[in-house]
């Protein structure tokens, strides 16, 4: 059972509806339907405009590819990451993916501020799709890596911002897999922890088959990526070795 990690995207298009307040209202819809016998209303506010966030994006990634995703704000980087993570189902096109997925974006979501550190490890682990047993097996590792000690028995609302980041980072990086998806490089903590975190990230990225990283930091991209992918207004405009892509993006 050794499937080669692979991602293939064929003509992926994503339309995101921009629902106005009126389009989100059932009452408006009902009133508009009831009115349909009368005169025609030119703009009833119910028409839902869509943003084409990704427009016919095709590419193929193989084992060993480290892809840096670049493009200005709103170019579609996050949308593409979400499509790769199965959050958005493409409006059109086909995505084929072989390999286990490790989404490493929005790592701070799903925490309960009233719950203790340990309870949040369980909660966040389940959101990441781990079973209770898998989480239990990793809890000690997370606790020791975060160096939070007895604080893990206390509600996380009393944690400092740095402590909370340590916990989030430790939980997010307790898994490894074939496909790493990152919206900005993740890191946390003070100087000493930062170094340890960096080591762990390199380990995870090193053992993964494919990494897709959306980022703006040129140095970071050159350091960690082999390939570059540039999006512009939802279209894939450039794809090739990272150095060349960054050069052309200038």
């Amino acid at each position: 059972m050794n499937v080669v990690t692979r991602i293939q995207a064929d003509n992926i298009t994503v339309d995101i509806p921009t629902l106005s307040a009126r389009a989100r209202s059932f009452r408006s819809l009902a009133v508009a339907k009831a009115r349909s016998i009368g005169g025609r209303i030119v703009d009833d506010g119910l028409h839902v405009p869509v943003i084409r966030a990704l427009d016919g994006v095709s590419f193929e990634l193989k084992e060993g590819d480290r892809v840096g995703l670049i493009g200005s704000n709103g170019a579609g980087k996050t949308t593409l990451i979400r499509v790769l993570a199965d959050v958005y189902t493409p409006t059109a096109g086909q995505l084929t993916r072989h390999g286990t997925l490790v989404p490493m974006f929005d790592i701070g979501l799903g925490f309960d501020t009233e719950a203790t550190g340990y309870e949040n490890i369980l909660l966040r682990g389940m959101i990441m799709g781990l079973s209770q047993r898998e989480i239990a097996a990793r809890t000690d590792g997370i606790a020791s890596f975060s160096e939070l000690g007895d604080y893990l028995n206390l509600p996380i609302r009393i944690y400092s911002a740095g402590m909370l980041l340590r916990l989030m980072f430790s939980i997010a990086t307790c898994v490894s897999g074939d496909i790493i998806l990152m919206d900005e490089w993740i890191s946390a903590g003070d100087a000493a922890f930062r170094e340890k975190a960096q080591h762990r990230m390199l380990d995870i990225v090193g053992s993964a088959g494919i990494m897709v990283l959306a980022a703006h930091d040129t140095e970071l991209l050159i350091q960690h990526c082999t390939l570059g992918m540039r999006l512009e207004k939802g279209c894939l405009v450039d794809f090739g070795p990272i150095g060349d892509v960054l050069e052309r993006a200038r």
Partner: protein
Amino acid sequence: MATGAIAISIGLVYGQFFGQSVESYLPYFTASYITWIFISSTIGEGSTSLIMAGHLIKSAHLPIVFHVLRTVQRNLIVLVHNTLVLLMVWLYFRWEIGPQALLTVLGFILLYFFLVGASMVLAIICVRYRDMPSFIQMFTQFLFFVSPVIWQPEHLRFASSVLALNPMSYMLIVVRDPILGRAVELETWLVAATLTLITVLAGAAFYIRFRDRVAYWV
């Protein structure tokens, strides 16, 4: 605690208002009330469960039914706590509980699946149409008054038509009546089971049809 206080005080006052003895009315109201709280809060929170989980839906690939079930489960835990109030009332009045009280479990299983299905449908509608939650809340309040929670069906002259038109009353009765030692007619069971089946199928249909769209609506 709050549920207990409300159940007992309203039980004492309304019992007299309806001209009934405390030992028959108080258990009735307590059982009705905690079941109703479970129904109404599950419907209320269930319908907004996807809106509340918006950030998570956009960042983690979880089946959306997870968010709905999480809400139903939380309300189930509250219900278990509230059952203690009924237990205390029983310890005081000691009405007869026979083996037929076990039918409450069956009734509860029906109600549980009914609420999962209903929450699924409502959650998807509410995530698309954001003015629906307040409408649902209002409607649930209305259902409270037309369901046999405070009043007993025996005391209404036209009770049968009110009951027949209100689906929630069937779901309430199959859970509550067995444990109070009241007989439940076969017809009520059949209606409750049919309602559950329809609701679960509707929930499944909504889930399959719209699960890929929800991430775009939150």
